[in-house]
């Protein structure tokens, strides 16, 4: 008896569930579809959507923080120090710019749109935009160069820095030579006297003129 009941119950269940299913699909035939006809109609991106990066290079101080934050290393930054006589201006947030930025490349093909580069920026100049249509036929075109420096400007800045460094080194060498001379002149007062030779702390241990014999301030 139960077997028979189960048999007919199965048939009834099958038929009734098919009817329910067909009713649902029929009702959906007349529901407005959810498709957006994409290239013709575009949805508005949410306010905080993360898409293509943009760098406002005028505000960039070349601090390299964004590049260090990037988990996939797709930001390449090179900087050139400015010399004291140059004024690179200030950023819109009022910070003084001290570095030229000859190279600021973002390989957007590698970028994973994590947005980790955005918050560290002290001047808020690297931002995510809502642009998402930037496919290219050549992969190389996906490396975005944000730097605006012309090759000759870069050259100039390099030369200037080099000159300034050389001058500083020469000055330092001269100071060292003077100190050595002073030391030679007054031997008893020697131990404390070699300190001022390395005085400018910002100076790297750049190679001084090696023809100064018995230079103590090295090492």
């Amino acid at each position, binding site marked *: 008896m139960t077997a028979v009941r189960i*048999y007919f119950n199965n*048939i009834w269940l099958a038929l009734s569930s*098919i009817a329910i*299913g*067909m009713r*649902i*699909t*029929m009702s*959906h*035939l*007349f*529901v*407005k*579809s*959810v*498709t957006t*006809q994409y290239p013709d109609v575009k949805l508005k991106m949410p306010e905080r959507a993360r898409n293509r990066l943009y760098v406002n290079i005028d505000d960039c101080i070349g601090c390299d923080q964004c590049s260090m934050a990037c988990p996939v290393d797709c930001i390449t930054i090179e900087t050139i120090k400015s010399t004291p006589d140059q004024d690179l201006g200030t950023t819109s947030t009022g910070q003084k710019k001290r570095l030229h930025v000859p190279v600021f490349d973002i390989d957007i093909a590698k970028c994973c749109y994590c947005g980790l580069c955005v918050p560290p920026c002290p001047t808020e100049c690297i931002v995510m935009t809502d642009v998402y249509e930037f496919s290219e036929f050549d992969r190389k075109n996906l490396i975005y160069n944000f730097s605006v420096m012309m090759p000759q400007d870069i050259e100039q800045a390099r030369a200037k820095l080099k000159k300034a460094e050389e001058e500083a080194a020469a000055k330092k060498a001269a100071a060292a030579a003077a100190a050595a001379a002073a030391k030679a002149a007054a031997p008893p007062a020697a131990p404390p006297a070699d300190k001022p030779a390395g005085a400018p702390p910002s100076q790297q241990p750049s190679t001084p003129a090696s023809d100064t014999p018995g230079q103590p301030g090295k090492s």
Partner: protein
Amino acid sequence: MEAFQNLGFWGTLLVTIVLSALPLVFVLLYALVTIYLEMKVAAHVQDRVAYMRTGWHGVLQPIADFIKLIQKEDIISVAANKKLFILAPYIVFMGTYGAYAAIPFSSIFIGANIDLGAFFIIGISSLVVVGILMAGWASNNKWSIFGAVRSAAQMISYEIPTALAVLIAVMITGSLNLQEVTKFQAGGIQNWLIFGGPLPLLQKILITPFTLITFLILFVASLAEVNRTPFDLPEAESELVQGFFTEYSGMRWALFYVAEYANMFLVAGVAVALFLGGWESPFGSFLSGPIWGLFWFIIKGMVLVFLQIWLRWTLPRLRVDQLMYTSWKVLTPFLFVCIIAIGLILVL
């Protein structure tokens, strides 16, 4: 067809060729329309929109697809059995198209007005199984052979309920000729076999539940015959890639595809001719005549085709054992009961 009797040999040949090509033209046009319909229904059931970019709401898409298919490279895998591989789609299409010969499109148009029409259709459409097995075997691919074997098992099992359902119609009308069966149901919607046919009132009332069930079973079984969802195990995409035509591409693939759609209309046409009054107008003599007959036949067929599409996008696929269960333990016994009951009622 009697009008063309004294045309001589060449005249007869020409007329024969033209007449036998007519359903082909119909099948191709119908396939284009149905492919479009199927995609649109599929999309709208899922709240999508389907083709939109080729012409108005994408109406030209099937044509674009067709052009793409003829341009495609014809690939035959190295391990395939070439002869069988090439032959298989033609056999499948032949089996389907051959059956169109006995479909009464209109009171004046039927390919071959043979007395064994229904029997012929059941017989020749079994050729499809051979073609499918051939395709699966010749592809030399495990998905294909699984698909083919499933298909054979399924089609052979469902041949029985189909044949029994046809038999019931034949019992009531007393003829295997589909043209005769159609004429039997003349006189409006209440005389269709699904509502018991033009029998005396008492018999009609008694017989109607059984004919309704028979029609339902015929429809379900014919779904399985043409490998449509929920019985599309032979080409179950999720398990078997494309089943027996995994290895096919280009025009050969298109041939399978057209055969599948042609098959859909074929089974719909048989069901219409047997149970829904064929080309007879649902309003008796109103709007009847050869041309209206064609119209009614195609409309009724398309309604059933739409039903098949609707079901496809509603139901999930059955398991193999459920498939067999449905055929042998549900449809067949129910039909036996119907046959006995209808037989008894008819001798009343």
